[in-house]
Each structure stands twice: as C-alpha cells, then as structure tokens.
C-alpha cells in the first residue's frame, strides 16, 4: 500500500467516526458510492445437490448461502393442514472478525427472529398437503405466493445512507429496514434509533419510497 494509503487506513482504524464524517462532508462514502446508491446484487439458485432447494446471493462483498431441507413432521393440532417453516440465520466466525465460534450470537438471533416474523406473519406458504409419497426425482416446488425483500438504511449525523457497509454500520445512529414484496406492499418496517427530520419528507417515508423503487429494479433477478 502506498504510504499515504497506509496513513489513511491508520486514521480510519483509530478514529473511524471522524474518518466517516470527513467523507460525508464531501457527500461521498468511503467506498465511493453516493448516499443513496445500492451495491449490486447477484443471485444464483439451486447449486447445492444435498439441499432440497438452495440459493447463493452476493450483495457487494456480503455473501449468503441458503439451503432448504424438507423433513416430515406431525402438524400442530390447531393447524392440521399447515406445515412448519423454520428459518435460522447463522453468522459463523468465518464471515467476520467480530464473530466468535460457538452458539449463535445476539445479532444472529435477532436476524433469525426478524426473518421468522416476516415469513410466518405472511402465512402465504401452503404446505404440500395430500402428498404422502416422496420420490427421489419428482418434487413439486413449494408454492411461494409472495417474495419479500428487505432493504436497510442508516442515518449518520443527519444524513441518510442506503445499504450501509460493515465499516459504516457500527457508526450509525439509526438503522431502518423496510421489507417490501413484489407488488410494492409493505411487509415490515423496523426502525431502531431516533428518526431525523432531513429536509422535506420524514426519514421513514423516504426510506419506504426508495425501497419500493429498488424492489422494482431487483424484480428481474429474483426468480
């Protein structure tokens, strides 16, 4: 690394907040994106043969591999025709220096709960009722009526940042995440931290509208 880049990274390591403030003052972010720009998303599906369904999604440098395993279980008494959808998010020590090996960290538990709320509140997944015989080759796809996608924002010193990176995330005063499905209906909105009145519209509504527009852009990529 050139000497100046080394000095910059030392400044970033010692005073992250001041470092980000200097960038925000120039209305640009450390990775060169404008405030409302999104990192590009790449999706590829069905690459894992041992899972009944799988997908790999890359959002910038964040990579998530998701697998679905189908098992047979006794339905609940009060919902005989409803199956179970059990989502779990695992943040292993592999993916970032701040995670330690062992049982799921608080952050992993919070994310799993949020995902569970979105999926179960939706009840749009009908279980394959009536199908008793399973064949190794033929398998009917799980009917997914809606495909919700979540978008997250952060507020730092009264500026709204879309899609915050791992460096920006710990410095944010407020985090907002909006879940929108494919025809623009709101599924869930979570705001942690004080909302800030930035200009005309309230922060939340700006986030919701930009989430909707972004959902349309992503429409093509999600099968």
């Amino acid at each position: 690394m050139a000497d100046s880049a080394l000095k910059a990274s030392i400044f970033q390591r010692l005073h992250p907040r001041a470092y980000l403030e200097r960038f925000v003052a120039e209305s640009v972010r450390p990775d060169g994106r404008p405030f409302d720009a999104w990192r590009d998303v790449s999706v590829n599906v069905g690459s894992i043969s041992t899972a009944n369904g799988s997908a790999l999604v890359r959002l910038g440098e964040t990579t998530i591999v998701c697998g679905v395993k189908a098992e047979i279980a006794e339905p609940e008494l009060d919902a005989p025709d409803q199956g179970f959808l059990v989502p779990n998010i695992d943040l292993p020590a592999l993916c970032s220096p701040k995670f330690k090996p062992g049982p799921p960290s608080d952050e992993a538990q919070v994310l799993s709960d949020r995902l569970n709320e979105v999926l179960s509140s939706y009840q749009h997944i009908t279980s394959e009722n009536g199908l008793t015989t399973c064949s190794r080759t033929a398998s009917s796809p799980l009917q997914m009526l809606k495909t919700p996608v979540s978008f997250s924002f952060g507020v730092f010193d009264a500026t709204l940042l879309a899609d915050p990176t791992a460096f920006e995330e710990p410095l944010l005063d407020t985090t907002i995440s909006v879940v929108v499905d494919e025809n623009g209906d709101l599924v869930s909105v979570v705001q942690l931290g004080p909302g800030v009145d930035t200009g005309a519209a309230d922060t939340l509504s700006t986030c919701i509208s930009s989430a909707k527009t972004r959902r349309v852009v992503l429409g093509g990529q999600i099968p």
Partner: protein
Amino acid sequence: MSSSSYCLPGQPIPLPRNGPVPQLGGGIYVRDSELRASLVGIPQQEGPVLSISRVRPRPPAINSVVLGSVTRLSPLQATLSISVVDGVPLPAGEEFTGVIRSQDVRATEKDRVKIGDSFRGGDVVRGVVISLGDARSYFVTTARNDLGVVFAVSEAGKTMVPVSWQSMRCPETGRLEKRKCAKPE
C-alpha cells in the same frame, strides 16, 4: 537483484551469484543449505538483506512501534489496546493488549511517576514494545521523547494540543491537562 517472477511458499530461490551471500529478511528460510520462500511474493534485495516483504498486519514484536488507545488505568500501570503495529493497522475488531508499567512511562524520575498525570482513558498512545510480557499482554514503554500521548480529548470534548512534554491545552476552555505527550513530528 529482484527476479521479476512471484515465488510461492516452499519454492527454492536462486542465490544471487554476484557478491556475498545475503542476509535473510522476512519471507525466506534456509532448508538443507538452500534458500526457499515462505511467502507469496517477489524476493527483493535492499543492500545486504534479501526478503519478500508483505505489508501485512502482524503481532507486536520486540522494538516494534505500536499505536493503541488506553483502556484501563491503575496506579501501577496503564492497559493499552494496540490497534496499529509498525505502521500497519490491524483489521477492525482485532487488538493486542499492551501494558505500560509506571516505571516505563518516562526516562527521568522513573519512581515518581503518577499514571493519572500521564494517561487518561481513551488517549491514543504511541509506544515501543520492550518485551513479549506475560500471557495476557505485551510490555510497552513510552520513555522516549517521540513516544507518549499522540491524541487526547479534553473534558470539554475537544481535541487537545500538546504544549509541553507533560501537558496539553484544550483549545476551547484553555485549561491545561497533564499528560505524557509525544513530541509532534
């Protein structure tokens, strides 16, 4: 003589024919009287030393210059969380623990040092590692003019300016606070 091709760990490095056998820097080791690379990179020779240099975060070693923030103070020592070693920052979330014992704070009047007058929590301190210390922490000294507090925030919350080797002034309130300051470059 820096051969342009990249070497891989375990790959033999041709001995430079002209001149004496070079000293070995980092990234190269000798096995059965043969030079072999232990890093991915291009062997460079500066003067007598042949090495493969990688600007990589590495653990503190004896005599490495470290930068860290003070995390705990006690009458006998100040605990330091080291985040920059030899000018290379450690990745976010990774730190080494260092300790500045009261006798290592300054060179003069070592026995009458008051830690409270030398460091405060949150100060960024530049020091030199004098020993690997014990299982928990490295021993760091600031007993040199260019070592000591490099950045401190006053009670009023403003970045302070060093006025002498043992005190800093807050630009807003003008009050002096006692610190063991490093001589600004």
